[in-house]
């Protein structure tokens, strides 16, 4: 049986030769152990480097607006992109929000087996000197300087992958994968449930505690496909919404602004959490938002082009118990 990786390569070769795409965005193995890195492939580039494995974590949809915009002006062309379930939902979001047109992209959808959290594995290895990595269906075997250790894949997934309902893309041009997506049975996060069960004061305290770690590098924003604003409110000077300091109040202002702009848009891909160099658990807040949108409006973003995002429409039976009377 052909490996998924070679299936992808053959497909890209075909797409290039048929001139259906001019550039392809996929993954290659990274320079760090247990990491991949985004790979921009042009027609004459080396396809051998292209990788698909359990470490393909980055949400590549983030690159689409700028790559597509760059190509405009010339002949109409398409960008090929490899999309896991969540990534494809981001692409749909970008199209729905008119940052791209459907014709700009050729989506190679891939049934996602769940991506492995590199940091989880590394935190269990004392040595950073990894010599060899091997894997079978169930395990990742890591040989490092002072020993070796097996890691069960399903115990080392990203938090967002553990609760992922949509491992198979809904929107794609070609779907790769064996079709039997490992549908998760637990689609709600225990961690988030515990957080949202807390009192408002306790939640605020945790919110503050997490955000004291933030250094305002904006990696969360820049890794997020939804954060495509040409000028972010955080950097606007006319008007200036808040200050550039790293005082907690300014940090909180930024995150509240960014997180609330995700309501009804966040696909819980985890890009922001993974990008954060300070390990701020942003998903605690974004996932809670995802859950609330789902509960109140029955909406999952990025599954189709037809359904209107909840914040752009209303229904007479919309829940409104959260609207409080001014006291």
């Amino acid at each position, binding site marked *: 049986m052909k490996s998924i990786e070679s299936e992808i390569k053959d497909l890209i070769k075909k797409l290039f030769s048929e001139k259906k795409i001019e550039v392809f965005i996929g993954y290659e193995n990274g320079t760090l152990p247990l990491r991949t*890195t985004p790979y921009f492939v042009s027609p004459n580039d080396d396809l051998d480097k292209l990788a698909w494995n359990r470490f393909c974590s980055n949400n590549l949809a983030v*690159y689409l607006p700028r790559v597509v915009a760059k190509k405009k002006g010339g002949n109409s062309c398409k960008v090929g992109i490899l999309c896991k379930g969540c990534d494809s939902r981001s692409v749909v979001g970008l199209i729905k929000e008119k940052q791209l047109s459907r014709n700009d992209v050729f989506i190679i959808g891939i049934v996602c087996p769940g991506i492995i959290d590199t940091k989880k594995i590394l935190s269990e290895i004392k040595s950073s000197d990894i010599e060899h990595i091997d894997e079978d269906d169930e395990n990742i075997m890591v040989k490092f300087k002072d020993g070796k250790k097996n890691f069960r894949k399903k115990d080392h997934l990203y938090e967002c992958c553990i609760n992922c309902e949509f491992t198979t893309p809904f929107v794609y041009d070609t779907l790769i994968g064996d079709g039997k997506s490992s549908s998760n049975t637990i689609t709600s996060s225990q961690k988030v449930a515990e957080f949202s069960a807390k009192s408002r004061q306790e939640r605020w305290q945790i919110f503050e*505690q997490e955000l*004291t770690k933030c*250094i305002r590098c904006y990696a969360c*924003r820049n*890794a997020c496909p939804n954060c495509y604003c040409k000028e972010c409110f955080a*950097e606007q000077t006319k008007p200036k919404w808040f200050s550039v300091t790293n*005082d907690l109040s300014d940090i909180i202002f930024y995150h509240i602004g960014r997180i609330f702009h995700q309501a009804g848009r966040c696909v819980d891909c985890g890009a922001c959490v993974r990008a954060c160099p*300070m390990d701020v658990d942003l998903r605690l807040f974004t996932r809670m938002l995802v859950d609330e949108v789902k509960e109140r409006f029955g909406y999952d973003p990025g599954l189709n082009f037809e359904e209107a995002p909840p914040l752009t429409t209303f229904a007479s039976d919309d829940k409104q118990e959260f609207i409080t009377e001014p006291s």
Partner: protein
Amino acid sequence: MKKELENYSILNKEDFNKFFNTLLGKYNIFGPSKSDKGDKLNKINSADDLMLDYKNFKMSAKEFFFPQCETLLAFDPSTGIVKNRSEDVDAKNDIIFGIRPCDALALSFFDRVFKDGAPQDPYYTEKRHRSTIISLACLEPEPTCFCNAVGCDVDSETGADIILTQLNSRYLIKSVTEKGIEILKHLKTLIPATEDDIKEKDELMAKAKSGLKSNVEVKALKKKLDDFDASFWQTVHQKCLGCGVCTYFCPTCHCFDMTDEVCNNTGRRIRTWDSCMFPLFTLHASGHNPRPSYKERMRQRILHKFNYAQENYNEIFCVGCGRCIINCPVNLDIRKVIQEILEAK
């Protein structure tokens, strides 16, 4: 005593706490310890808080001398009072204890920019004059370390006043500057070093150096970088997300912005880290941006470090600490960028 042994002394590990506490009595000491923000330089109140088994800590030592947000002055127009930050300084001087040689070297670059040139930056200079740098040689470099490729090393002394090497059950201490000699004077816990100690250090350092696996060659880089419009700039930036991680974690990146924060008629002038990776960095008041895309911004970062710094200071403003590699959200590896540029036709 032999001349070459003159600046060396030995501190037995069982005397370490005593040694450290003596220094604590006279100085404010900042060293690596655990905190919410990961392992970083924090104020140390007891030798037990100190964490010296780290490889390199998360944030570089620059934030001590060049904080992310620093109040330069405070003003109150109603009273006409302007208060300069330097008016309230602590009576004790500072010791920065246990930073890696790469971070110490990076501070020497900061000195070139903020202290040794004109105009001199009073805020940085004042802190620098008050502080003594005690660095700790690397015994086990990380796989992301490439200091050897950029003119730094596991036992570089530049930027440090004293350098410590952990030997078996004792520390070898070398005073590098007059400031270092002054601090170690009259410390009863220190005993003279022998040639065997130096030999042990040399062996440890040779072993540590062999752990540096990067084969990046930066000598040929400058010439390549003289071509401002080279075609490789079209591709090397592609996966960059344009966040501030590499610049914020970099121990040599030193760009800043200044803002007046005014509220209810009183205010302060602050200096905050800025990043050439942000569009706002070069946005003109007219709306024009001379570095409009990721390509120009990435080019600026690489050129500043590997080209302009050579022209202006005869240095490469990269010490090979690897923090940008460890923290980049898309694993955009500076070693690979250098390699790609060198290989580009």
